[in-house]
């Protein structure tokens, strides 16, 4: 199960023996994961299995108790979250975390801050470089918004948007960070079936367009089974299965984790 079909591709993300204790509770224990360039991998598991904790450790919000995380060959454990983001890992959040009182456009433009192309001095003195780069990044941000069909509402305040649009703004904002690895935490939560289909197409599309590697947490089996190439299943902080969507669907351990013992087939 450890060998992937495109084995000669370099691994973008390699996690070894990742463990996180909260007090005496092991939220994640001995978690391993390898992501190759361009893969779309799902991370699933029942509530409280430790999926989001893994995300928080990859992005530096939590410091792991032990274990290593290699991103393009560099160990990123102990780096500050903003340093990790600047290396090329962007994420969305399970409970949407937009900047609520700012416009949609500003939400996306904030993601340009580390690579805006001008310095603070340029901004204070309003040099030509400031005007050029500022215009450029605004246009780019609008391009992102237009991919997500949000360009018409660029001037709306984020907190007033409907749920589905907020989710799309969050993905657009993560893409504006210019990532190589995108972590999506339950992107389909609270979406209706039509929006879910759109989202699946969108994820496929941005992966091709921006040459991304994507790691996805999702509860909607339809999404996970529909788009992921590989799936890792967690329960109680540990990996209980890995494989293709088909293998996972038939794995008795997974079925047990989701539905409990004694059930013979998945719903």
């Amino acid at each position: 199960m450890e060998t992937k079909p495109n084995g000669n591709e370099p691994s973008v993300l390699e996690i070894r023996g990742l463990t996180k204790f909260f007090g005496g509770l092991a939220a994640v224990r001995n978690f391993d994961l390898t992501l190759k360039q361009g893969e779309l991998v799902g991370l699933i598991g029942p509530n409280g299995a430790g999926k989001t904790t893994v995300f928080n450790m990859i992005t530096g919000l939590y410091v792991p108790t032990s274990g290593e995380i290699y991103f393009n060959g560099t160990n990123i454990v102990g780096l500050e979250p903003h340093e990790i983001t600047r290396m090329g890992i962007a994420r969305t959040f399970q409970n949407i975390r937009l900047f609520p009182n700012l416009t949609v456009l500003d939400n996306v433009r904030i993601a340009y801050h580390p690579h805006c192309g001008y310095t603070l001095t340029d901004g204070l003195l309003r040099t030509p470089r400031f005007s050029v780069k500022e215009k450029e990044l605004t246009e780019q941000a609008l391009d992102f918004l237009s991919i997500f069909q949000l360009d018409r509402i660029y001037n709306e305040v984020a907190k007033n948007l409907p749920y589905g649009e907020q989710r799309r703004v969050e993905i657009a904002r993560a893409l504006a960070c210019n990532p190589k690895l995108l972590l999506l935490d339950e992107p389909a939560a609270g979406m209706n079936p039509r929006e879910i289909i759109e989202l699946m197409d969108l994820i496929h599309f941005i992966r091709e367009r921006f040459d991304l590697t994507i790691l996805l947490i999702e509860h909607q089996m339809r999404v996970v089974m529909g788009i992921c190439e590989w799936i890792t299943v967690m329960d109680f902080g540990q990996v209980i299965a890995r494989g293709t969507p088909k293998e996972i669907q038939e794995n008795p351990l997974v079925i047990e984790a989701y539905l409990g013992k004694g059930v013979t087939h998945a719903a």
Partner: protein
Amino acid sequence: MELGFLLGSLVKIIAIMAYLYGLMWVLARPSIWIKIAGLIGAFAVVQLALTDINGFRLLNNFDNGLLFQACAMTMVALGLNLIYGFNGQFSLGQWGFYGIGAYAAADITYRWINGDARGLLVLGFGALLGTLVLIGINKWLQRFRGIPVLSSFTLYLIGALIAGVTAVYLGNQLNPLITPFLGTAGEPGPLNTPAAQQVIYFLSVILAGIFAAQISFLFGLPVLTLGSDYFGIATLGFTIVVNTLMVNSDTILPFPEMKGGRGMIGIPKLTTWFSAFFFMMLVIIIMRNLIHSSTGRSLVAVREDEVAAKAMGIDVAGAKLFAFVVGSFFAGLGGAVYAHYIGFLSPGTFDFLAGFNPLIIVVFGGLGSMTGTITATFGWIFFLEGMLRVLLSQMGTEAPTWRFVLYPITLLLLMLIRPQGLLGSVEWGFLKGPEFTPVPRSHPEPAHESAA
């Protein structure tokens, strides 16, 4: 009845609002020459109103004082708006930095006119060396991962102390070279002509701002790691500490010329309308350019959601510290301008209760609104003083007491009616930031074939 005076105050406030609006409007014009002409015009109009022409002056001494006070307060309040309104860090320390700026600048010019250049030399070298050392340590620390804040703070503190001691040493060594040119208070030397004093005054204002910024860096580094409420209490403590040091400046601090609780007298009154206007516009322009740049957006992002800001690649701790230092710099400038207008500094002015004034102005004008802060400052000062004059004539000595009954009630009513502040998030002309017109886009890349 002083109804006429009250009406006069009202007219003045309206005129000032129109003046500010016009200034912001003309600065928003695209041509640089129109902007410069607008600035000069705005300066000249008030200068004219303050000048005695055939015994007639549009603005009397009283208004003149209010105007300078409002300019100084605008700088302080804008600094606080940067810290609290834009960056979301509830701070009560602004008044302390205001006091530091006032005393630092006053000390420079007071010593200078009395034939002692050490104030300028020590603070000048301190600003230079201290900034270099702090930046150097900062660059060096960036090589390491995960240094605890208190460790880096200790390093910064040691560096700052070494820089400070060096500055004092250099100041004492170089002082005899300059003193012959200063003369005494009775017989001013060649470096004490009115023009030279203005230059020293401008330098002292900037050095006072830098000094306040350096202190705020050292203070903010450990304290900004506290949560927002705890940070507020810590900064309140800072204001009280600064006030206590002022009261005892001649006993536990080696500054006999500050005269402790009796108040520092004899500060040269060097503030002119030009300097007050210059520094106020400097602060407004720096702040506006900062807010409408990528760094400004990152500051606002920290206010909105720290975790999301981190995930967007923003150095949250750095952004907070940056806003705090810049805000304190503005406060230091404001204090220096105030000190040279009033000519007398008393620790009572920098009492922590008075420290709520900028906070009231910022909240009243609207958090995160520069226009609100500027207009609220001018309105606040003219309204309060106008009220005092009216009440004094009606009630005699009890008036000040009544003022602080009516004033909170007014505030309370306005907060109930407009909780978002007087102007909400409205910005006038220049303060709005660069505008752009988005090109309408077609959707050439339909990602949703199957959605149909």
